Protein backbone atom coordinates (compact mmCIF):
# COMPACT_ATOMS: atom_id res chain seq x y z
CA UNK A 1 0.00 0.00 0.00
CA UNK A 2 1.40 3.37 -0.94
CA UNK A 3 1.45 6.30 1.40
CA UNK A 4 -0.28 9.56 0.65
CA UNK A 5 2.47 11.88 1.84
CA UNK A 6 -0.23 13.98 3.44
CA UNK A 7 0.19 16.42 6.29
CA UNK A 8 -1.15 15.39 9.69
CA UNK A 9 -4.81 16.06 10.26
CA UNK A 10 -4.76 17.58 13.73
CA UNK A 11 -8.20 19.14 13.52
CA UNK A 12 -9.36 16.86 16.34
CA UNK A 13 -6.48 18.02 18.58
CA UNK A 14 -6.15 14.44 19.78
CA UNK A 15 -3.11 12.19 19.86
CA UNK A 16 -5.19 9.11 19.05
CA UNK A 17 -8.62 8.85 17.45
CA UNK A 18 -10.02 5.34 17.06
CA UNK A 19 -13.34 5.22 15.23
CA UNK A 20 -15.35 1.99 15.12
CA UNK A 21 -12.27 -0.22 14.85
CA UNK A 22 -12.91 -3.90 14.26
CA UNK A 23 -10.57 -6.79 13.59
CA UNK A 24 -11.67 -10.22 12.41
CA UNK A 25 -9.04 -12.93 11.93
CA UNK A 26 -9.73 -15.73 9.47
CA UNK A 27 -8.10 -19.03 10.36
CA UNK A 28 -7.82 -22.00 7.99
CA UNK A 29 -7.51 -25.57 9.23
CA UNK A 30 -6.71 -28.83 7.46
CA UNK A 31 -4.78 -29.62 4.28
CA UNK A 32 -7.20 -31.63 2.14
CA UNK A 33 -10.45 -30.53 3.75
CA UNK A 34 -9.85 -26.89 4.42
CA UNK A 35 -12.20 -25.27 6.87
CA UNK A 36 -12.27 -21.58 7.62
CA UNK A 37 -13.26 -20.00 10.89
CA UNK A 38 -13.50 -16.38 11.90
CA UNK A 39 -12.44 -14.90 15.21
CA UNK A 40 -13.72 -11.47 16.13
CA UNK A 41 -10.85 -10.01 18.17
CA UNK A 42 -12.01 -6.38 18.33
CA UNK A 43 -15.53 -5.11 17.69
CA UNK A 44 -16.49 -1.48 17.01
CA UNK A 45 -13.96 0.12 19.35
CA UNK A 46 -13.95 3.93 19.53
CA UNK A 47 -12.01 6.25 21.84
CA UNK A 48 -9.81 9.33 21.82
CA UNK A 49 -6.59 10.12 23.68
CA UNK A 50 -5.41 13.67 24.43
CA UNK A 51 -1.84 14.87 23.95
CA UNK A 52 0.13 14.36 27.17
CA UNK A 53 -2.46 11.94 28.57
CA UNK A 54 -1.74 8.52 30.04
CA UNK A 55 -4.67 6.48 28.79
CA UNK A 56 -5.33 2.91 29.95
CA UNK A 57 -6.85 0.04 28.06
CA UNK A 58 -7.91 -2.40 30.73
CA UNK A 59 -9.21 -5.91 30.27
CA UNK A 60 -8.57 -9.59 30.96
CA UNK A 61 -6.34 -11.79 28.79
CA UNK A 62 -7.81 -12.25 25.32
CA UNK A 63 -10.09 -9.21 25.61
CA UNK A 64 -8.59 -7.50 22.53
CA UNK A 65 -6.16 -5.04 24.13
CA UNK A 66 -3.09 -6.14 22.19
CA UNK A 67 -5.00 -6.38 18.91
CA UNK A 68 -6.22 -2.80 19.42
CA UNK A 69 -2.68 -1.60 20.14
CA UNK A 70 -1.36 -3.44 17.09
CA UNK A 71 -3.91 -1.75 14.84
CA UNK A 72 -3.02 1.66 16.24
CA UNK A 73 0.71 0.99 15.81
CA UNK A 74 0.16 -0.13 12.16
CA UNK A 75 1.29 -3.70 12.88
CA UNK A 76 -2.17 -4.95 11.94
CA UNK A 77 -4.63 -3.63 9.38
CA UNK A 78 -8.13 -3.28 10.75
CA UNK A 79 -11.05 -5.09 9.11
CA UNK A 80 -13.18 -1.97 9.39
CA UNK A 81 -13.14 1.45 11.02
CA UNK A 82 -10.51 4.15 11.02
CA UNK A 83 -7.69 5.29 13.28
CA UNK A 84 -5.51 8.37 13.28
CA UNK A 85 -2.38 8.59 15.39
CA UNK A 86 -0.75 12.01 15.86
CA UNK A 87 -2.97 13.19 13.02
CA UNK A 88 -1.88 10.50 10.55
CA UNK A 89 -4.08 7.75 9.18
CA UNK A 90 -2.67 4.42 10.41
CA UNK A 91 -3.36 2.67 7.08
CA UNK A 92 -2.48 5.34 4.54
CA UNK A 93 0.43 7.02 6.35
CA UNK A 94 1.83 4.09 8.28
CA UNK A 95 5.49 5.05 7.87
CA UNK A 96 4.85 8.52 9.28
CA UNK A 97 3.03 6.97 12.22
CA UNK A 98 5.87 4.53 12.83
CA UNK A 99 8.48 7.28 12.78
CA UNK A 100 6.70 9.17 15.57
CA UNK A 101 5.65 6.41 17.96
CA UNK A 102 7.38 4.00 20.31
CA UNK A 103 6.14 0.49 20.99
CA UNK A 104 6.92 -1.64 24.02
CA UNK A 105 5.42 -5.09 23.72
CA UNK A 106 7.32 -6.34 26.73
CA UNK A 107 7.92 -9.83 28.05
CA UNK A 108 10.89 -12.13 27.68
CA UNK A 109 10.71 -12.07 23.88
CA UNK A 110 11.31 -9.31 21.35
CA UNK A 111 15.01 -8.77 22.04
CA UNK A 112 18.16 -10.10 20.39
CA UNK A 113 19.42 -12.03 23.37
CA UNK A 114 22.73 -13.18 21.88
CA UNK A 115 24.04 -9.63 21.53
CA UNK A 116 24.47 -6.74 23.95
CA UNK A 117 21.97 -4.06 24.97
CA UNK A 118 24.05 -1.50 23.06
CA UNK A 119 23.89 -3.57 19.89
CA UNK A 120 20.11 -4.04 20.31
CA UNK A 121 19.53 -0.30 20.68
CA UNK A 122 21.95 0.71 17.92
CA UNK A 123 20.19 -1.65 15.53
CA UNK A 124 16.73 -0.31 16.29
CA UNK A 125 18.04 3.27 16.17
CA UNK A 126 19.10 2.59 12.58
CA UNK A 127 15.76 0.99 11.74
CA UNK A 128 14.02 4.08 13.14
CA UNK A 129 16.22 6.43 11.12
CA UNK A 130 17.95 8.04 14.11
CA UNK A 131 20.92 9.95 12.67
CA UNK A 132 24.35 8.52 13.52
CA UNK A 133 25.39 11.78 15.24
CA UNK A 134 22.50 11.41 17.71
CA UNK A 135 22.34 7.62 17.94
CA UNK A 136 25.24 6.68 20.19
CA UNK A 137 24.60 9.55 22.60
CA UNK A 138 20.93 8.59 22.88
CA UNK A 139 21.74 4.90 23.38
CA UNK A 140 24.00 5.83 26.29
CA UNK A 141 21.45 8.24 27.80
CA UNK A 142 18.66 5.68 27.60
CA UNK A 143 20.73 2.91 29.12
CA UNK A 144 21.74 5.25 31.93
CA UNK A 145 18.11 6.32 32.48
CA UNK A 146 17.08 2.67 32.68
CA UNK A 147 19.97 1.79 35.02
CA UNK A 148 21.51 -0.63 32.52
CA UNK A 149 24.70 1.20 31.57
CA UNK A 150 26.97 -0.94 33.79
CA UNK A 151 25.78 -4.08 31.96
CA UNK A 152 25.35 -2.45 28.55
CA UNK A 153 28.02 -4.59 26.87
CA UNK A 154 26.83 -7.90 28.30
CA UNK A 155 24.71 -10.29 26.27
CA UNK A 156 20.99 -9.73 26.89
CA UNK A 157 20.53 -13.46 27.58
CA UNK A 158 22.33 -12.88 30.90
CA UNK A 159 19.81 -10.21 31.99
CA UNK A 160 17.07 -10.68 34.57
CA UNK A 161 13.40 -10.26 33.64
CA UNK A 162 13.37 -6.75 35.05
CA UNK A 163 16.46 -5.73 33.10
CA UNK A 164 14.94 -7.08 29.90
CA UNK A 165 11.79 -5.09 30.57
CA UNK A 166 13.83 -1.93 31.07
CA UNK A 167 15.66 -2.64 27.82
CA UNK A 168 12.28 -3.00 26.09
CA UNK A 169 11.37 0.44 27.44
CA UNK A 170 14.67 1.90 26.25
CA UNK A 171 14.08 0.43 22.80
CA UNK A 172 10.60 1.97 22.73
CA UNK A 173 12.17 5.39 23.36
CA UNK A 174 15.03 5.10 20.86
CA UNK A 175 13.38 7.44 18.32
CA UNK A 176 12.34 9.95 21.02
CA UNK A 177 8.65 9.30 20.24
CA UNK A 178 5.83 11.71 20.94
CA UNK A 179 3.51 8.82 21.73
CA UNK A 180 4.37 5.52 23.41
CA UNK A 181 2.33 2.33 23.38
CA UNK A 182 3.01 0.10 26.37
CA UNK A 183 1.49 -3.36 26.16
CA UNK A 184 1.26 -4.89 29.65
CA UNK A 185 4.63 -3.49 30.75
CA UNK A 186 4.56 -5.10 34.19
CA UNK A 187 3.23 -8.55 33.33
CA UNK A 188 5.30 -11.34 34.85
CA UNK A 189 7.52 -8.96 36.85
CA UNK A 190 8.03 -9.30 40.56
CA UNK A 191 6.35 -6.56 42.63
CA UNK A 192 9.46 -4.47 43.20
CA UNK A 193 10.44 -4.37 39.52
CA UNK A 194 6.82 -3.73 38.52
CA UNK A 195 6.81 -0.74 40.89
CA UNK A 196 10.05 0.55 39.33
CA UNK A 197 8.53 0.17 35.87
CA UNK A 198 5.42 2.11 36.88
CA UNK A 199 7.68 4.84 38.27
CA UNK A 200 9.46 5.08 34.91
CA UNK A 201 6.12 5.34 33.14
CA UNK A 202 5.17 8.24 35.43
CA UNK A 203 8.48 9.97 34.65
CA UNK A 204 7.80 9.65 30.92
CA UNK A 205 4.44 11.38 31.34
CA UNK A 206 6.15 14.12 33.35
CA UNK A 207 8.48 14.58 30.37
CA UNK A 208 5.43 15.34 28.23
CA UNK A 209 4.99 12.00 26.46
CA UNK A 210 1.55 10.69 25.56
CA UNK A 211 1.10 7.07 26.63
CA UNK A 212 -1.41 4.37 25.83
CA UNK A 213 -0.97 1.55 28.30
CA UNK A 214 -2.69 -1.82 28.36
CA UNK A 215 -2.98 -3.74 31.58
CA UNK A 216 -5.20 -6.25 33.27
CA UNK A 217 -4.47 -4.84 36.72
CA UNK A 218 -7.06 -2.33 37.93
CA UNK A 219 -4.74 -1.00 40.60
CA UNK A 220 -2.13 -0.22 37.94
CA UNK A 221 -4.64 1.66 35.82
CA UNK A 222 -5.82 3.48 38.94
CA UNK A 223 -2.29 4.48 39.90
CA UNK A 224 -1.17 5.60 36.44
CA UNK A 225 -4.02 6.51 34.13
CA UNK A 226 -6.04 9.66 33.76
CA UNK A 227 -8.76 7.76 31.92
CA UNK A 228 -9.43 4.09 31.36
CA UNK A 229 -11.34 2.14 28.74
CA UNK A 230 -12.43 -1.30 29.95
CA UNK A 231 -12.48 -3.85 27.15
CA UNK A 232 -14.27 -7.20 27.25
CA UNK A 233 -14.63 -9.70 24.40
CA UNK A 234 -13.29 -7.12 21.96
CA UNK A 235 -15.74 -4.37 22.95
CA UNK A 236 -15.33 -1.31 25.13
CA UNK A 237 -17.80 -1.69 27.99
CA UNK A 238 -16.82 1.43 29.96
CA UNK A 239 -14.71 4.55 29.49
CA UNK A 240 -14.12 6.85 32.43
CA UNK A 241 -11.62 8.08 34.98
CA UNK A 242 -10.55 5.26 37.32
CA UNK A 243 -12.58 6.67 40.19
CA UNK A 244 -15.48 7.32 37.82
CA UNK A 245 -15.67 3.59 37.14
CA UNK A 246 -17.04 3.16 40.68
CA UNK A 247 -20.41 4.35 39.45
CA UNK A 248 -20.82 0.93 37.84
CA UNK A 249 -21.05 -0.67 41.28
CA UNK A 250 -23.09 1.84 43.31
CA UNK A 251 -26.06 -0.54 43.11
CA UNK A 252 -24.23 -3.44 44.73
CA UNK A 253 -22.39 -4.74 47.77
CA UNK A 254 -19.76 -7.41 47.74
CA UNK A 255 -20.16 -10.68 49.58
CA UNK A 256 -16.67 -12.09 50.03
CA UNK A 257 -16.54 -15.77 50.85
CA UNK A 258 -13.36 -17.49 51.97
CA UNK A 259 -13.44 -21.27 51.98
CA UNK A 260 -11.99 -24.59 50.92
CA UNK A 261 -13.28 -27.11 48.37
CA UNK A 262 -15.21 -24.56 46.33
CA UNK A 263 -15.61 -25.81 42.76
CA UNK A 264 -16.35 -24.28 39.35
CA UNK A 265 -19.74 -26.01 39.44
CA UNK A 266 -20.71 -24.11 42.58
CA UNK A 267 -19.47 -20.83 41.09
CA UNK A 268 -21.65 -21.46 38.05
CA UNK A 269 -24.66 -21.89 40.37
CA UNK A 270 -24.00 -18.42 41.84
CA UNK A 271 -23.86 -16.94 38.35
CA UNK A 272 -27.31 -18.37 37.62
CA UNK A 273 -28.90 -16.56 40.56
CA UNK A 274 -30.96 -13.58 39.26
CA UNK A 275 -29.89 -11.31 42.13
CA UNK A 276 -26.18 -11.87 41.47
CA UNK A 277 -24.58 -9.19 39.28
CA UNK A 278 -21.13 -10.75 38.99
CA UNK A 279 -18.95 -13.44 40.51
CA UNK A 280 -15.17 -13.55 40.52
CA UNK A 281 -13.13 -16.34 42.05
CA UNK A 282 -9.56 -16.77 43.17
CA UNK A 283 -9.23 -20.55 43.29
CA UNK A 284 -6.05 -21.13 45.28
CA UNK A 285 -4.86 -24.60 46.19
CA UNK A 286 -5.36 -24.21 49.94
CA UNK A 287 -8.09 -21.60 49.98
CA UNK A 288 -10.60 -20.13 47.58
CA UNK A 289 -12.04 -16.62 47.65
CA UNK A 290 -15.30 -15.72 45.96
CA UNK A 291 -16.48 -12.15 45.41
CA UNK A 292 -20.19 -12.00 44.74
CA UNK A 293 -21.67 -8.65 43.75
CA UNK A 294 -25.34 -8.33 44.58
CA UNK A 295 -27.77 -5.55 45.48
CA UNK A 296 -29.12 -7.81 48.25
CA UNK A 297 -25.94 -7.73 50.37
CA UNK A 298 -26.27 -9.80 53.55
CA UNK A 299 -29.68 -11.15 52.50
CA UNK A 300 -27.93 -13.57 50.17
CA UNK A 301 -25.87 -15.28 52.91
CA UNK A 302 -28.32 -18.15 53.44
CA UNK A 303 -28.25 -18.94 49.71
CA UNK A 304 -24.45 -18.83 49.79
CA UNK A 305 -24.39 -21.34 52.64
CA UNK A 306 -26.88 -23.58 50.84
CA UNK A 307 -24.86 -23.67 47.58
CA UNK A 308 -21.58 -24.20 49.44
CA UNK A 309 -22.87 -26.83 51.85
CA UNK A 310 -20.44 -29.38 50.39
CA UNK A 311 -17.46 -27.08 51.00
CA UNK A 312 -15.86 -25.64 54.08
CA UNK A 313 -16.59 -21.94 54.68
CA UNK A 314 -13.98 -20.06 56.73
CA UNK A 315 -15.41 -16.56 56.59
CA UNK A 316 -18.11 -14.43 54.96
CA UNK A 317 -17.77 -10.62 54.81
CA UNK A 318 -20.04 -7.94 53.39
CA UNK A 319 -18.00 -5.12 51.84
CA UNK A 320 -18.45 -1.85 50.01
CA UNK A 321 -17.34 -2.30 46.39
CA UNK A 322 -13.88 -1.07 45.39
CA UNK A 323 -12.49 -0.03 42.01
CA UNK A 324 -11.27 -3.60 41.57
CA UNK A 325 -14.87 -4.78 42.06
CA UNK A 326 -16.05 -2.27 39.46
CA UNK A 327 -13.55 -3.72 37.02
CA UNK A 328 -14.53 -7.29 37.85
CA UNK A 329 -18.17 -6.41 37.40
CA UNK A 330 -17.45 -4.99 33.96
CA UNK A 331 -15.38 -7.90 32.73
CA UNK A 332 -16.89 -10.87 34.53
CA UNK A 333 -20.55 -11.64 34.18
Amino acid at each position, binding site marked *: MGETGSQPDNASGKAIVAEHLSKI*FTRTKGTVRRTKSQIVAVKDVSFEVDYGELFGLLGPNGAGKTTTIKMLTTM*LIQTSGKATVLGYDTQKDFTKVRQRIGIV*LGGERGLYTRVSAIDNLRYFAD*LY*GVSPSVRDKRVKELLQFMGLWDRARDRVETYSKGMKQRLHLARGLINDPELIFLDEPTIGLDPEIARETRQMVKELVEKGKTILLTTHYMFEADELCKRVAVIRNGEIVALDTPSGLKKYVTDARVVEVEGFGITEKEIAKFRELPEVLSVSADLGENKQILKIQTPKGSEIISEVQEILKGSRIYDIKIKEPTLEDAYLRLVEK
Partner: protein
Amino acid sequence: MPEALRVIYSAFRMAMLHWFADPQWVIPNIIAPFIFTSVALTLFKDSTGPFGLYAVLGGGMMGMWGNTLYASGFAIEMERWQGTLEEVMAAPSKLLHVVAGRSVSNAVFGLTNMLAVFLIAVLVFRVQIEVDDPLLFVTTTVLTLVSVSTLGLIFASAFVLSRSTQVLTNGLETPLYIISGSMFPIALLPFWIHPIAYVLGPTWGVDAIRLAASQEYLSQTFWQGFDVNTAILLDVVMMMAITLAYAGMAVVLFKVVEKRARIKGTLVEA
Protein backbone atom coordinates in the same frame (compact mmCIF):
# COMPACT_ATOMS: atom_id res chain seq x y z
CA MET B 1 25.04 7.42 4.12
CA PRO B 2 21.57 7.12 2.56
CA GLU B 3 18.89 5.74 4.89
CA ALA B 4 18.37 2.48 2.94
CA LEU B 5 22.11 1.73 2.91
CA ARG B 6 22.35 2.40 6.63
CA VAL B 7 19.54 -0.08 7.32
CA ILE B 8 21.16 -2.66 5.03
CA TYR B 9 24.51 -2.18 6.79
CA SER B 10 22.91 -2.38 10.22
CA ALA B 11 21.06 -5.61 9.36
CA PHE B 12 24.30 -7.00 7.90
CA ARG B 13 26.15 -6.08 11.12
CA MET B 14 23.47 -7.67 13.30
CA ALA B 15 23.61 -10.89 11.23
CA MET B 16 27.41 -10.99 11.58
CA LEU B 17 27.20 -10.42 15.35
CA HIS B 18 24.77 -13.31 15.64
CA TRP B 19 26.90 -15.47 13.41
CA PHE B 20 29.94 -15.07 15.61
CA ALA B 21 27.92 -15.23 18.83
CA ASP B 22 26.75 -18.70 17.94
CA PRO B 23 29.29 -21.51 17.46
CA GLN B 24 26.83 -23.17 15.07
CA TRP B 25 28.66 -21.36 12.24
CA VAL B 26 31.10 -24.25 12.29
CA ILE B 27 28.38 -26.53 10.83
CA PRO B 28 27.51 -24.61 7.64
CA ASN B 29 30.99 -23.21 7.08
CA ILE B 30 33.33 -26.08 7.92
CA ILE B 31 31.49 -29.36 8.40
CA ALA B 32 28.90 -28.95 5.63
CA PRO B 33 31.46 -27.97 2.94
CA PHE B 34 33.54 -30.98 3.92
CA ILE B 35 30.52 -33.27 3.49
CA PHE B 36 29.46 -31.57 0.24
CA THR B 37 32.94 -31.92 -1.22
CA SER B 38 33.15 -35.55 -0.16
CA VAL B 39 29.77 -36.27 -1.78
CA ALA B 40 30.71 -34.44 -4.96
CA LEU B 41 34.09 -36.16 -5.27
CA THR B 42 32.49 -39.56 -4.62
CA LEU B 43 29.97 -38.88 -7.41
CA PHE B 44 32.78 -38.03 -9.84
CA LYS B 45 35.35 -40.57 -8.72
CA ASP B 46 34.91 -42.86 -11.77
CA SER B 47 34.73 -39.99 -14.27
CA THR B 48 37.39 -39.24 -16.76
CA GLY B 49 38.58 -35.75 -17.59
CA PRO B 50 38.82 -32.65 -15.39
CA PHE B 51 36.04 -33.50 -12.94
CA GLY B 52 37.65 -31.59 -10.08
CA LEU B 53 36.06 -28.28 -11.02
CA TYR B 54 32.59 -29.83 -11.28
CA ALA B 55 33.08 -31.38 -7.88
CA VAL B 56 34.30 -28.16 -6.27
CA LEU B 57 31.66 -26.02 -7.97
CA GLY B 58 28.96 -28.52 -7.09
CA GLY B 59 30.07 -28.63 -3.47
CA GLY B 60 30.44 -24.85 -3.38
CA MET B 61 26.99 -24.27 -4.83
CA MET B 62 25.46 -26.71 -2.36
CA GLY B 63 26.98 -24.75 0.50
CA MET B 64 26.15 -21.37 -0.99
CA TRP B 65 22.52 -22.20 -1.69
CA GLY B 66 22.12 -23.98 1.64
CA ASN B 67 23.47 -20.86 3.32
CA THR B 68 21.07 -18.62 1.40
CA LEU B 69 18.07 -20.68 2.37
CA TYR B 70 19.28 -20.75 5.94
CA ALA B 71 19.85 -17.00 6.01
CA SER B 72 16.60 -16.05 4.32
CA GLY B 73 14.35 -18.69 5.79
CA PHE B 74 15.58 -19.90 9.13
CA ALA B 75 16.74 -16.44 10.16
CA ILE B 76 13.24 -15.04 9.63
CA GLU B 77 11.76 -18.01 11.46
CA MET B 78 14.16 -17.29 14.34
CA GLU B 79 13.06 -13.65 14.34
CA ARG B 80 9.45 -14.77 14.51
CA TRP B 81 10.23 -17.27 17.26
CA GLN B 82 12.11 -14.78 19.44
CA GLY B 83 9.45 -12.11 18.86
CA THR B 84 11.70 -9.65 17.03
CA LEU B 85 10.02 -9.99 13.61
CA GLU B 86 7.06 -7.85 14.56
CA GLU B 87 9.36 -5.35 16.30
CA VAL B 88 11.38 -5.06 13.08
CA MET B 89 8.25 -4.76 10.95
CA ALA B 90 6.85 -2.10 13.29
CA ALA B 91 9.87 0.11 12.53
CA PRO B 92 9.59 2.68 9.73
CA SER B 93 12.38 1.17 7.63
CA LYS B 94 11.49 -1.27 4.86
CA LEU B 95 11.65 -4.95 5.69
CA LEU B 96 13.19 -5.55 2.27
CA HIS B 97 16.24 -3.51 3.30
CA VAL B 98 16.59 -5.49 6.53
CA VAL B 99 16.41 -8.80 4.66
CA ALA B 100 18.76 -7.46 1.98
CA GLY B 101 21.31 -6.73 4.73
CA ARG B 102 20.98 -10.31 5.87
CA SER B 103 21.43 -11.47 2.29
CA VAL B 104 24.67 -9.50 2.00
CA SER B 105 25.91 -11.22 5.14
CA ASN B 106 24.89 -14.47 3.55
CA ALA B 107 26.97 -13.62 0.50
CA VAL B 108 29.99 -13.15 2.77
CA PHE B 109 29.33 -16.48 4.49
CA GLY B 110 28.80 -18.04 1.07
CA LEU B 111 32.22 -16.83 -0.05
CA THR B 112 33.90 -18.33 3.00
CA ASN B 113 31.90 -21.47 2.38
CA MET B 114 33.09 -21.76 -1.21
CA LEU B 115 36.65 -21.04 -0.14
CA ALA B 116 36.36 -23.83 2.45
CA VAL B 117 35.17 -26.26 -0.24
CA PHE B 118 38.07 -25.25 -2.49
CA LEU B 119 40.64 -25.66 0.27
CA ILE B 120 39.21 -28.98 1.45
CA ALA B 121 39.22 -30.31 -2.12
CA VAL B 122 42.81 -29.21 -2.74
CA LEU B 123 44.37 -29.86 0.67
CA VAL B 124 42.43 -32.87 1.95
CA PHE B 125 41.37 -34.67 -1.23
CA ARG B 126 44.38 -33.58 -3.33
CA VAL B 127 42.19 -32.50 -6.27
CA GLN B 128 44.08 -30.60 -8.93
CA ILE B 129 42.23 -27.50 -10.06
CA GLU B 130 43.64 -25.26 -12.71
CA VAL B 131 42.08 -21.90 -13.43
CA ASP B 132 42.76 -20.11 -16.78
CA ASP B 133 41.75 -16.63 -15.61
CA PRO B 134 41.78 -16.28 -11.79
CA LEU B 135 40.51 -12.66 -11.81
CA LEU B 136 37.55 -13.52 -14.02
CA PHE B 137 36.97 -16.65 -11.95
CA VAL B 138 36.71 -14.62 -8.71
CA THR B 139 34.58 -11.90 -10.36
CA THR B 140 32.06 -14.36 -11.81
CA THR B 141 31.96 -16.21 -8.48
CA VAL B 142 31.11 -12.99 -6.58
CA LEU B 143 28.44 -12.05 -9.14
CA THR B 144 26.94 -15.53 -8.87
CA LEU B 145 26.80 -15.08 -5.10
CA VAL B 146 24.88 -11.83 -5.62
CA SER B 147 22.46 -13.67 -7.91
CA VAL B 148 21.96 -16.51 -5.43
CA SER B 149 21.40 -14.03 -2.60
CA THR B 150 18.84 -12.08 -4.63
CA LEU B 151 17.02 -15.31 -5.42
CA GLY B 152 17.04 -15.90 -1.67
CA LEU B 153 15.26 -12.56 -1.18
CA ILE B 154 12.30 -13.84 -3.19
CA PHE B 155 12.03 -16.90 -0.98
CA ALA B 156 12.49 -14.77 2.13
CA SER B 157 9.28 -12.91 1.29
CA ALA B 158 7.40 -16.22 1.44
CA PHE B 159 9.05 -17.01 4.75
CA VAL B 160 7.68 -13.77 6.22
CA LEU B 161 4.17 -14.93 5.45
CA SER B 162 4.45 -18.62 6.20
CA ARG B 163 5.05 -20.29 9.53
CA SER B 164 6.11 -23.53 7.79
CA THR B 165 9.52 -22.39 6.64
CA GLN B 166 11.22 -25.67 7.50
CA VAL B 167 9.19 -27.51 4.84
CA LEU B 168 9.97 -24.84 2.23
CA THR B 169 13.66 -24.82 3.14
CA ASN B 170 14.01 -28.58 2.87
CA GLY B 171 12.01 -28.71 -0.36
CA LEU B 172 14.06 -26.04 -2.10
CA GLU B 173 17.55 -27.08 -1.09
CA THR B 174 18.28 -29.89 -3.57
CA PRO B 175 16.53 -28.75 -6.78
CA LEU B 176 18.57 -25.58 -7.31
CA TYR B 177 22.02 -27.06 -7.46
CA ILE B 178 20.83 -29.84 -9.72
CA ILE B 179 18.80 -27.65 -12.08
CA SER B 180 21.42 -24.89 -12.26
CA GLY B 181 23.93 -27.37 -13.62
CA SER B 182 26.32 -26.93 -10.74
CA MET B 183 26.96 -30.61 -10.35
CA PHE B 184 26.79 -31.77 -13.98
CA PRO B 185 25.93 -30.21 -17.37
CA ILE B 186 22.33 -29.17 -17.97
CA ALA B 187 22.43 -31.20 -21.20
CA LEU B 188 22.21 -34.33 -19.06
CA LEU B 189 18.91 -33.20 -17.52
CA PRO B 190 15.51 -33.95 -19.12
CA PHE B 191 14.64 -31.44 -21.84
CA TRP B 192 11.58 -30.09 -20.02
CA ILE B 193 13.80 -28.91 -17.14
CA HIS B 194 15.93 -26.70 -19.43
CA PRO B 195 13.53 -23.70 -19.47
CA ILE B 196 13.50 -23.76 -15.64
CA ALA B 197 17.29 -23.89 -15.60
CA TYR B 198 17.57 -20.88 -17.90
CA VAL B 199 15.40 -18.62 -15.74
CA LEU B 200 17.69 -19.27 -12.78
CA GLY B 201 20.43 -16.63 -12.55
CA PRO B 202 22.92 -19.05 -10.94
CA THR B 203 22.71 -21.34 -14.03
CA TRP B 204 24.43 -18.63 -16.13
CA GLY B 205 26.74 -17.78 -13.25
CA VAL B 206 27.98 -21.34 -12.88
CA ASP B 207 28.54 -21.46 -16.64
CA ALA B 208 30.59 -18.25 -16.49
CA ILE B 209 32.68 -19.52 -13.55
CA ARG B 210 33.43 -22.74 -15.35
CA LEU B 211 34.42 -20.95 -18.55
CA ALA B 212 36.67 -18.58 -16.58
CA ALA B 213 38.36 -21.67 -15.17
CA SER B 214 38.77 -23.52 -18.43
CA GLN B 215 37.65 -22.79 -21.99
CA GLU B 216 37.28 -26.48 -22.73
CA TYR B 217 33.82 -26.25 -21.13
CA LEU B 218 32.64 -24.03 -24.00
CA SER B 219 31.27 -27.05 -25.87
CA GLN B 220 28.95 -27.81 -22.94
CA THR B 221 27.46 -24.32 -22.65
CA PHE B 222 24.59 -22.45 -24.28
CA TRP B 223 27.03 -20.26 -26.24
CA GLN B 224 28.87 -22.95 -28.19
CA GLY B 225 29.36 -20.86 -31.37
CA PHE B 226 31.03 -17.93 -29.58
CA ASP B 227 34.57 -17.36 -28.37
CA VAL B 228 35.15 -17.89 -24.67
CA ASN B 229 35.29 -14.22 -23.60
CA THR B 230 32.05 -13.38 -25.42
CA ALA B 231 30.44 -16.47 -23.90
CA ILE B 232 31.46 -15.34 -20.40
CA LEU B 233 30.18 -11.82 -21.07
CA LEU B 234 26.85 -13.17 -22.35
CA ASP B 235 26.57 -15.45 -19.31
CA VAL B 236 27.17 -12.49 -16.98
CA VAL B 237 24.70 -10.27 -18.86
CA MET B 238 22.03 -12.97 -18.70
CA MET B 239 22.71 -13.58 -15.02
CA MET B 240 22.58 -9.90 -14.10
CA ALA B 241 19.42 -9.29 -16.14
CA ILE B 242 17.72 -12.19 -14.36
CA THR B 243 19.09 -10.98 -11.01
CA LEU B 244 17.64 -7.51 -11.62
CA ALA B 245 14.32 -9.14 -12.43
CA TYR B 246 14.58 -11.06 -9.14
CA ALA B 247 15.28 -7.80 -7.29
CA GLY B 248 12.22 -6.17 -8.92
CA MET B 249 10.10 -9.18 -8.02
CA ALA B 250 11.41 -9.05 -4.44
CA VAL B 251 10.39 -5.38 -4.08
CA VAL B 252 6.84 -6.16 -5.25
CA LEU B 253 6.59 -9.40 -3.27
CA PHE B 254 7.73 -7.76 -0.04
CA LYS B 255 5.08 -5.06 -0.39
CA VAL B 256 2.38 -7.66 -0.97
CA VAL B 257 3.61 -9.99 1.75
CA GLU B 258 4.01 -7.22 4.36
CA LYS B 259 0.44 -6.12 3.75
CA ARG B 260 -0.88 -9.68 3.92
CA ALA B 261 1.02 -10.32 7.14
CA ARG B 262 -0.54 -7.18 8.62
CA ILE B 263 -3.99 -8.37 7.61
CA LYS B 264 -3.57 -11.99 8.69
CA GLY B 265 -1.53 -11.32 11.83
CA THR B 266 1.12 -13.94 11.04
CA LEU B 267 4.10 -12.04 12.42
CA VAL B 268 4.08 -13.79 15.75
CA GLU B 269 4.61 -17.43 16.60
CA ALA B 270 1.22 -19.13 16.98
